[in-house]
């Protein structure tokens, strides 16, 4: 199955196709894959992060489903 992955701020260097940027990329994965599995596969830095699946916060152990959009941000804020 496929999910779309979008990586923001300096995490965009870890895009699966190596091309950088923040546009969402399709990513093929096996059923039963979790957010944590993707983070490991992409080699994201071990630091706090904000993860959304389809616009809602998701935990590391959340299971991904066909067509999901996964967006990952490093620690950011503003105001």
């Amino acid at each position, binding site marked *: 199955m496929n999910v779309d992955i*979008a990586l923001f701020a*300096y995490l965009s260097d870890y895009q699966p196709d190596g091309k950088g940027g923040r546009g969402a990329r399709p990513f093929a994965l096996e059923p039963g894959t979790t957010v944590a599995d993707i983070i490991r596969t992409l080699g994201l830095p071990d630091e706090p992060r904000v993860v*959304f699946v389809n616009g809602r916060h998701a935990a590391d152990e959340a299971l991904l489903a066909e067509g999901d959009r996964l967006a990952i941000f490093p620690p*950011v*804020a503003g105001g």
Partner: protein
Amino acid sequence: MRDILRVNMTDLSTTWEPVPDAWKLYGGRALTDAIIYNDVPADADPLGSANVLVFAPGMFGGTTAPNGGRLSVGAKSPLTGGIKESNSGGQLAHTLARLGIGAIAISGIPADPAARYALTIEADRSVSLTRVDEWAGLGNYETAAAIAATRPAEDRFATATNGPAGEAMARAAGIAISDPKGYPNRFAGRGGLGAVMGSKGIKAIIVSDKGAGFLEHADKEAFVAATKNFTKAIKEHGVSGTGLPMYGTNVLTNILNEAGGLPTRNFSAGSFEFADAIGGETQRATILERGGDVSHGCSTGCVIKCSRYWSDKDGNYKTKGPEYETAWSMGADCAIGDLDEIAELDRACGDLGLDTIEMGATLAVYMDSGAIQFGDAAGALAALRDGLADNVIWDGAEATGKKFGVARIPVVKHQALPAYDPRSVQGIGVTYATSTQGADHTAGYTITANILGVGGTVNPLSPEGQVTLSKTLQIATAMLDSLGLCIFVAFPVLDIPEAFVAIHEMLEAHTGTKYDIAALMQMGREVLTMERLYNERAGFTSADDRLPEFFRTDKLPPHDALFTVTDADLDSVFDFVPETAKEMGLQ
């Protein structure tokens, strides 16, 4: 010893008085509140003689406390009708504090409404009021240049200036504060305080601190040790140590868009198709490409450095930021997807002296009326520059919406909502609804736990836990605003316990006053208590602590979210006020 400089514009007198002992730990917002609470009748005309415009550095102003240079500007607000504190970066807070000035309090109205005055305070604390009628109508940038031309070449000074909008006493007018390079680009933007400055005939405040150093401390060794601990906490936190310095405040655009909380097309949607084009990552890349300044402090002593300068395509300085709030208000809310167009609007607001949050929201309301189309940047700029001539744009979103018959007007206590939709970020809805300041995100910034995972997590789409979150943050923020600390230190403070301890240690070492650390949060409660009591006297009731009805009835895409925090819960936010008032001996 700190003093209050009293300026009376009716008889053009100036006098000094010491800050009363009862207010010895009050700076910034606490001090502006205390002066307004005591001196300005709640039924006073905000543009009349009885209103008092107060400029106060926080308790850490003039010191080396990291991020301790914020300025509070206060008065009775012409926009909200209640007490107002608008908080700004820039150099003025440090400059005032180094001269031992706890506050400037300006009352009265000049006899000649056409007169313009410059209030100048020299480094030896001599004070003068000078007629500068020839500066009438100048934009903030031209005013800054005119001021610079009057000063000695080697001077060091900071300014507060008023643009044409403030001179016209428009209700969306803010006050420009000079940054470290002298650009008048930091703002006490909210609540129409520029109109109060205009009513008093003050075009500029100029304060020199040439030769003045940092302030002395009761215990210098302890102060330095505490500042090191505080700096360490700020630097090691991911948000204040990396995210903000790298991308600035506008890094929020993509994350709020992802969460469905980026108000778009006058709060009719929660995501914007051009979010990335106006977001912090694109902004950083563009600034670097044009040779601009991508990270600096907006005042001396800032260790976060989230400010930046936007250059035009030829590499010339255009404006600061744009900050997240401006990128949102002029961008997503108006459906303008181009940072150069946003920067042009930001520059116009900066020069005219207008609050960019209020103005972006106003232009979006204006677009919603059909007068111009969403996305029409040229039309927006023309409407902005027309100001009061053909419409009511400079008076803000509510006045504009009423004049043009718009049903959806996003205001609380007459002040426009900032850049987070309360349907998909419910905690901020509690803050917008209940804040003493009108809709104000900085009053209790629940985006921390609602969206960013700082200080815990609270589901942004659920009403659960939002009142406690907002209440705690409103109290903490009132305290930070009084100390003169930038609100962004809240990120490490929420996650790193040593940071709060360091604040307490810095304040004890600076003032020589020993007290329980719990007194810091009590200070926040006291600030909010003065504000609530003042607003009650001005006629505010629980009916004013509500969001516009459409947030409960119109579903917001993409989550089809509605604001569902109950009225009873909203009414519980300030349950501590009676007890705190009793402890303070008020009422």
